């Protein structure tokens, strides 16, 4: 009769949380909040303050810069981390292209969360490194 949480089980399959124990994942689910966005709804707004770190549980979102879609995000992907880490407004809109179910952590709590969960921080760094690598290849 273990006390269970469906979302804690679901994020076990996400690279960002792959190194966490069951109780740690359950804690993550309690620290983050759930959010739901309908198709076409903006989640992050280019140039607006007050963003957060979003983890996609279900659905698809587009990265839209100046009205042009650049890339798609899906379950297990995350966005908003650059804005949170730099303390600056997002440089792109993130728009739900299908109903989007997310976990979200406000920008103000991201630093303390990552310091308290260094394994998540390392996974996030790996993700950022992959993005830099992709951009570098694209530019070269």
């Amino acid at each position, binding site marked *: *009769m*273990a*006390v*269970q*949480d469906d979302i804690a089980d679901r994020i076990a399959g996400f690279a960002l949380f792959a190194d966490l*124990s*069951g*109780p*740690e994942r*359950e*804690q993550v*689910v*309690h*620290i983050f*909040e*759930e*959010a*739901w*966005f*309908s198709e076409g*709804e*903006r989640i992050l*707004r280019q*140039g*607006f*303050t*007050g963003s*957060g770190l979003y983890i996609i549980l279900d659905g698809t979102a587009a990265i839209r810069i100046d009205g042009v879609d650049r890339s798609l995000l899906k379950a297990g992907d995350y966005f908003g981390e650059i804005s949170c880490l730099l303390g600056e*407004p997002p440089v792109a809109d993130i728009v739900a292209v299908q*109903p989007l*179910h997310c976990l*979200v*952590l*406000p*920008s*103000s*709590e991201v630093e303390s969360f990552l310091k308290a969960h260094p394994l998540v921080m390392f996974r996030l760094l790996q993700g950022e490194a992959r993005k830099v690598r992709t951009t570098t290849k694209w530019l070269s």
Partner: protein
Amino acid sequence: MAQLAKPLFPAGRYPLIVVGSGPGALQLTYSLTRLGIEHAVLSEDPAPGGMFRRWPVFQRMLSWTKPFTGLDRESRAYERYDWNSLLADEAAGRAVMARVMDGTSYFPSRPEMERGLVEFAEASSLRIRFGCRWESTSREGEDFVLRTSDGDYRSPLVVFAVGVAEPWRPAGLEGVPHYGELRPAATYADRRVFIIGKQNSGFEIATGLLPLARQIVLASPSATKLSVNTHSLVGVRARYVQPYEDSVLAGGVLVLDTSIDEVKRTQNGYQVRTRSAKDDSVLTFEVDDVIAATGFASPLRDLPQLGVATFGQSRLPAQTPFWESATVPGIYFAGTINQGAQGMKKHGIPSNSGAVQGYRYNARVLAAHLAERRFGMRLPRRQLDAKEVIPRLLAEASHGPELWHQRSYLARVLLVDPDHGIVDEGIVPLAHFVDSAGPDGVAVALESNGRDDPYPAVYIRRGGSVTEHLLESSPLLDFEGEDHRKALVSALDRLMSPSISQPQP
């Protein structure tokens, strides 16, 4: 109550149906009625009040009504200090709570809150069919059909104001008594009590049991947040912080950041096994009582089968900025269930739509929205002279109760109409203004960032593109001075007609 008890709204077809009789439904039916929109109101309860007919369990509200403010209690500005009264145009229905409270606390007792809601309904002659239980829902052409204890009701538009008060427990806690099943407090005397959950409901119980229980343990996976630290309604409210102080100063209460591995019945009580997320260590507690303060869900019955998308442990319906189901057009929501319309949630701070002081404004905006979008009405709007724009926006940021109670959620919007000049569009959901196409205009909201004093946030739409302009805060929370005037003139000068931002003569 004779008028309220009279059977109304027999089964049949109506242009609009509202389900519920808590504060959200009362405010909505009041506002719809004043706009002349024909509708039926159905409630399974015998009288107005919703959850406040029973809860909070320790019989005192968390939200205050400040009796002495130097303001006329019937003024709009007074609403900022009165978190509990519903909104009325007539004096008899305004600031009701300030009249019914006995003056011993600025937090109304639960019976006072219930009495205030009944008085509002009576003073406003609200028409509600009580004792009519909504049981199931189906579609017939464009209509929704509500099967009720009093027959079938049909309408193309239904607003559910049914609260978020259905006890919710995670799997594994099925046999554990919930917050709503708390026994009389005296029965916990000299007992060891384990409370699962460290939100307000858990701390409310702990506060109430402090003089009685031998030991209190509060446990949940994440650390306790306090509202005085988050500068918002996120976290445990100050009234319930005493168990936390007992924990840190005297150790009489244990506040643990652990997940619950197992709750097992024993011969004399319960055995609770916890596991720390920090080091995986296990603790086992032998206790007399366990209480699940694990939250509440929306009693949506079969609406999800009809296609209404829900999310979160509260199974809140996903909603548009105007509180319509994001997935089933024609179904709307009012009251505390409006938490499902999250708005911009800037800095992670939610709206106050979960509380009376927030959703009373949502209901009024929803009524106006329904009037225009669904009933073809065009509500009057006030035209402004250019010289009125700056003072109007700054006055709203300083005193507008909608902006103060619904930060970064509801905004005062002025539009530039090619035919009529500058028009006051009224109070509008901010997310709608910034994310929808429309004429050039400006929205002012009050914003909190969870750290500093609140400050005005101005959003300017020009040519379909919206930009954000944040003004400074003020230690006196007065944004009508020269510095704010200059800052707003500067923001508007760059983006709107210069005539708007001319200084006052």
